[in-house]
């Protein structure tokens, strides 16, 4: 039995009040173990990004209990237990690629030499060591997102939160990035929570796919993905892969109908 990195019991989130009251999430029970790769998938308004932000203490739950890395989400955030990657790379234009990767370390007060060593290591992890002194705008979208991943992992967090990180990329780059993320996940043994609305992406990446449905946002089904690792182009052409895609698609449809 491995340790739970995320533990949610009856978590709910309400935005606004009165007529503007929106129940974004309700009755979320979820356990994410160490080393898992979990995708949250569902249509717009199902609360998948909200759930990610609750885990990251960027939002606070209205009801229920949420434990991250064995503590309150706020404490986990203050202890830098997670790194986060958004849909936009959100790199700071006035910093070089290297300085962007160093940003969290700088905030943490890590000494300069160690910061530099860590940034070099992380940039080679995402294979951008030759671009350390470039500025973000000189990089393609896929490269920028890899810098964002290097930044999120720079302080070796136990948990990596990714909010539709490849949503803005073209299909080819997207597949390459998925391969990258799987490799990084294997090399770093980080637990990943990955928000997406692409069914193939969720199946290809995940150990489990959490299917969510809207109004109010809730978990409608959890699909296990027992595809063998390492996963590659052959995985994408296997029958099991198609079967699982169908399973997730049907789960999504059932969630919509209910």
């Amino acid at each position: 039995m491995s340790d739970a990195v995320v533990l949610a019991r009856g978590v709910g989130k309400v935005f606004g009040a009165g007529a503007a009251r929106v129940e974004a999430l309700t009755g979320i029970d979820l356990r994410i173990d160490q080393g898992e790769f979990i995708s949250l998938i569902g249509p717009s308004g199902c609360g998948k990004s909200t759930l990610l932000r609750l885990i990251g203490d960027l939002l606070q739950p209205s009801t229920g209990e949420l434990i991250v890395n064995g503590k309150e989400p706020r404490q986990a955030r203050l202890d830098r237990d997670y790194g986060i990657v958004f849909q936009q790379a959100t790199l700071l234009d006035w910093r070089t690629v290297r300085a962007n990767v160093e940003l969290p370390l700088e905030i943490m007060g890590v000494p300069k030499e160690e910061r530099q060593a860590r940034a070099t290591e992380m940039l080679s992890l995402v294979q951008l060591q030759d671009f350390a002194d470039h500025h973000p705008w000189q990089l393609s979208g896929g490269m920028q997102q890899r810098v964002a991943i290097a930044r999120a992992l720079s302080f070796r967090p136990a948990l990596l939160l990714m909010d539709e990180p490849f949503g803005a990329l073209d299909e080819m780059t997207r597949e390459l990035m998925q391969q990258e993320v799987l490799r990084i996940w294997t090399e770093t043994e980080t637990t990943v929570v990955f928000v997406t609305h692409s069914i193939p992406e969720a199946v290809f990446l995940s150990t489990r796919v959490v299917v969510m449905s809207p109004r109010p946002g809730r978990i409608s089904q959890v699909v296990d993905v027992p595809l063998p690792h390492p996963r590659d182009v052959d995985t994408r052409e296997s029958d099991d892969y198609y079967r699982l895609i169908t399973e997730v698609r049907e789960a999504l449809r059932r969630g919509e109908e209910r």
Partner: protein
Amino acid sequence: MTEPADRDLDLFEPRETDVFAGFEGDIPGEPGRIETWIRAYGPAGVAFVVVLVLWEGLTRAFDVETFLLPKPSEIAQRFVVNFDVIWAAGFRTFFEALGGFVVGGVMAVVMALATVRWSAVREGLLPFAIAANTTPIIALAPIANNWFNVTSPVSKMAVVAVIVFFPVMINTARGLLEVQPEELELLRAAAATPRQVLRLVRIPSALPFFFSSLKVASALSIIGAIVAEYFGGPQDVLGQYILNRANLFQFPDAWAAIVVASIIGITFYMVIVVAERLAMPWHVSLRKTDTA
């Protein structure tokens, strides 16, 4: 396993800035410095000369009276004859403008930082600042002359400081406050302190707004100083020089002084443009086509 080469593919994706590479083929060889300079400033230079020639030609052709519109050649002649007097007056006026600019600018930045730190300042004072920015502050000039000794440059600086304060304060505050929400989430996720958020994200984001407002303020500061001078004070400044010469119907002299005021204003503006380039070479408007 995937071929490493596959994974590496997007390392070599064209960067956005490479769109310019497509045009490079059209230009035979590297354009030299002078050629680039002519391309950039040539049209404006030609327009300037054309206007001067038309002005000179038309005022001669229609025999326009000098008190209505002097010929450029007359203005140029007075500019040379009165060179020392006009420039000395110009520098005194610039000193007033600069003093007010620095005082008003520093106060504006302090207030803008206060809007970030205290919501009471943001919500209570910012609306008044925006309202004040739309009122003709120059109307204060006679009153400032009364508050501060009219013979002292401080009275003119006070007017300039108030004029400079509002646009710089409002724009800098906007820049500090309007940070991308994701950048704030990123810093929050990294458990950054408010001071770190200010230093790492808010201040760099505000620089473009700050410099835009300084450019506006540089022009306003010269205008403010000259107009404040119209309302009295020592005679050896541009405003009084223009006023006196106009009263004596010596209009070419007044125009020559206006030329000096323009030269000072444009130079001041250019200094800020250079400072802007040095402070934020990363900004989208200032990026050079990059090296790779």
